[in-house]
């Protein structure tokens, strides 16, 4: 059979391959995966019941959303009660000081997602603010690179989780204030993320800056640009692809580490959600954990896509293939 015959048989036009590559094949992949998951899950029995298949996970994701809505209703009722209590207080004593308190209920799954996102963003930005300038410095000056490199090489392979106890103790010792702007638990998670986001960005930026086309460097020299202009006009644009490679690696590992740190330190976020569900040991726990696992994956994917879009926007070379 010729390939033409195959195409006719399958009913595809000549434009079909592109369409197939972009949506049909991934859809087939996902369908096969779901089928495989369904079959395998049905054959694993744990002491918490059967391993959740796609159907159970779907049910639980709906249940989690309903819980979220119920919690919001409870919050509304809480505020109403507070209002009437405050009103009564004022009636009794018009000079009474009235305080407005936030809802005291539990954070829902959706709340935990936002907490995690917020934490990773904070830790990542902090790391980038340090790592990009440091990387540029290392790339521009061989001496700085030689001085800093051993330290980078030693700290790079350390799992940031090993830092966690130290971070926790330092934060609680140093960050003392009566009315703190940030929760300590938030800072612990965020700094742990920072520590792990530093290295990929530093290394890739260094490589990017050191490998700038000689011609570009020479142009800078010829027109006698000062150091700052040189960095802004030549070094940064030329090393954008490598910087972003570093940033994407950083963000991806930061996201992974954050979940583990939240689990370990019981800091609010998706990691804590998973740990709490594991501790609950109810018959729904595994399905709910699976919902969290998929959510984490999806968010990680979206974060990476967002970085890619950002890279496209700031990159001068619009022809480069990015993936």
């Amino acid at each position, binding site marked *: 059979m010729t390939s033409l015959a195959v195409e006719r048989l399958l009913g595809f036009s000549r434009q079909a391959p592109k369409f197939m590559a972009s949506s049909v094949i991934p859809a087939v992949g996902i369908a096969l995966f779901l089928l495989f998951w369904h079959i395998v899950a049905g054959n694993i029995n744990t*002491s*918490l019941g059967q391993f959740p298949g796609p159907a159970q996970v779907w049910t639980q994701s709906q249940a989690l959303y309903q*819980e979220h809505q119920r919690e919001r209703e409870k919050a509304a009722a809480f505020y109403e*009660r507070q209002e009437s*209590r405050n009103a009564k207080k004022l009636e009794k004593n018009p000079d009474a000081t009235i*305080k407005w*308190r936030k809802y*005291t*209920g*539990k954070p829902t799954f959706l709340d935990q997602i936002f907490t995690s996102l917020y934490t990773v963003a904070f830790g990542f930005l902090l790391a980038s603010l340090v790592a990009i300038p440091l990387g540029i410095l290392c790339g521009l000056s061989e001496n700085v690179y030689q001085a800093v490199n051993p330290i980078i090489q030693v700290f790079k392979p350390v799992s940031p989780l090993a830092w966690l106890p130290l971070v926790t103790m330092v934060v*609680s010792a140093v960050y003392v204030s009566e009315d703190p702007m940030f929760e*300590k638990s938030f800072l612990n998670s965020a700094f742990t993320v920072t520590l792990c986001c530093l290295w990929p960005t530093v290394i890739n930026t260094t490589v990017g800056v050191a490998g700038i086309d000689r011609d570009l460097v020479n142009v800078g020299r010829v027109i006698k640009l000062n150091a700052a202009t040189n960095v802004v006009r030549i070094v940064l644009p030329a090393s954008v692809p490598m910087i972003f490679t570093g940033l994407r690696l950083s963000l991806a590992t930061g996201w992974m580490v954050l979940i583990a740190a939240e689990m370990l330190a*019981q800091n609010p976020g998706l990691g804590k959600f998973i*740990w*709490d*569900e594991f*501790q*609950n*040991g*109810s*018959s729904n*726990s595994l399905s*709910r954990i699976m919902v969290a696992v998929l959510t984490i994956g999806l968010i990680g994917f979206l974060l990476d896509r967002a970085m890619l879009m950002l890279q496209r926007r700031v990159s001068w070379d619009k022809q480069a293939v990015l993936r």
Partner: protein
Amino acid sequence: MHLVKRFLAVVMCVVLPVSSIAEVGEPEKDELTFGFIKLTDMAPIAVAYENGYFEDEDLYVTIEAQANWKVLLDGVIDGQLDGAHMLAGQPLAATIGFGTKAHIVTPFSMDLNGNGITVSNAVWQAMKPNIPKMADGRPVHPIKADYLKPVVDSYIADGKPFNMGMVFPVSTHNYELRYWLAAGGLHPGFYAPHKGDISGQIDAEVLLSVTPPPQMPATLEAGTIYGYCVGEPWNQQAVFKGIGVPVITDYEIWKDNPEKVFGMTKEFTEKYPNTTIRVVKALLRAAKGLDENDNANRMEAVEILSRSEYVGADAEVIANSMTGTFEYEKGDKRDVPDFNVFFRYFATYPYYSDAVWYLSQMRRWGQIDAPKNDAWYHDVAKSVYRPDLYELAAKELIAEGHMEASDFPDFSTESGFRAPQTEFIDGVTYDGTKPNEYLKSFPIGLKDEIL
């Protein structure tokens, strides 16, 4: 003029005491965070929150599950938590400086009983032939550790250490498990903190180690331990999962033993006295509700506890022990109406004698390294257990009409020491006024010696 003054004085005498009892002032601190461990005996806190008793006291409380007892205690000490569901031994140990030192007090006992000892299926199969049977073939209860002894001996003969889990070095569970083992002739090991040995395994035949309550079933399943002593729902969870068999409840080891307490730092109670009284009031109302009308409200409490932010286990597992029954071997469900007691028998009153019992066990197993005189035991008990705060809260509730005087011990005559208690599994009598005499009545355990 003179008459008017006298009249006023009389009026003041009559009115003032009443009004000072009838109303506690505004809470000094009204946004509070309380910690708990995922166990059914945290119910008074959950119920006080869900039924709005905290809000009735103008308190805005956030309730947070803690990873383990150590994290919880540290949270209370460093002020991240304003109060917590604690093991009765924790405030005592912290105050005398075994472990982290801090002066923690308790104005409220949270419950009686509620724990059990579970062994793995393999150990149960080995124990079972030794246990006398009833006519219907089910084992006679209570099951003593005497029947476990041959199993432990055979493990030791094979060179395998016999490991069991408990939840914390100063936990009720540690003392109950030790009490049960020692009553059956099995040595659970001594502590020697003055020599830096806090593993509690000196001379031990059964090696005890710490595992957080919710992880007990998983650790048993992994084979790291052969049995454990823990609170509910983690014994019933083992039955449901088919990985172990509960052999005895603490009710049968010591009938109506005091269990968890609500702990706060002494500093907190002094800085925020009104808040403290209001917290106790809310907890008292919740505890009363839990036992009211012969446990009528327990199913409602089970539903609350089964939510993922509280205990989170399946409702049917929690219900098993909360509603007056207890399932031992699968299918062998027996009535234990007093398995969880939250209010009756004056369960919430912080008796000094309860504190002294915990201190006596700390001494028995060497956590208190040197012998102390009876007065020391009483002084420590009085500095940690605070029936005075309890009394203020109780009188408030009576004045408000939420409770009656008969709900509480007679405050005018109560000494804080229960009458000598006799219902222990080994038949030893406990009199809280004479701890040293009590220690001498045990064949296994420290008396006057220092290790």
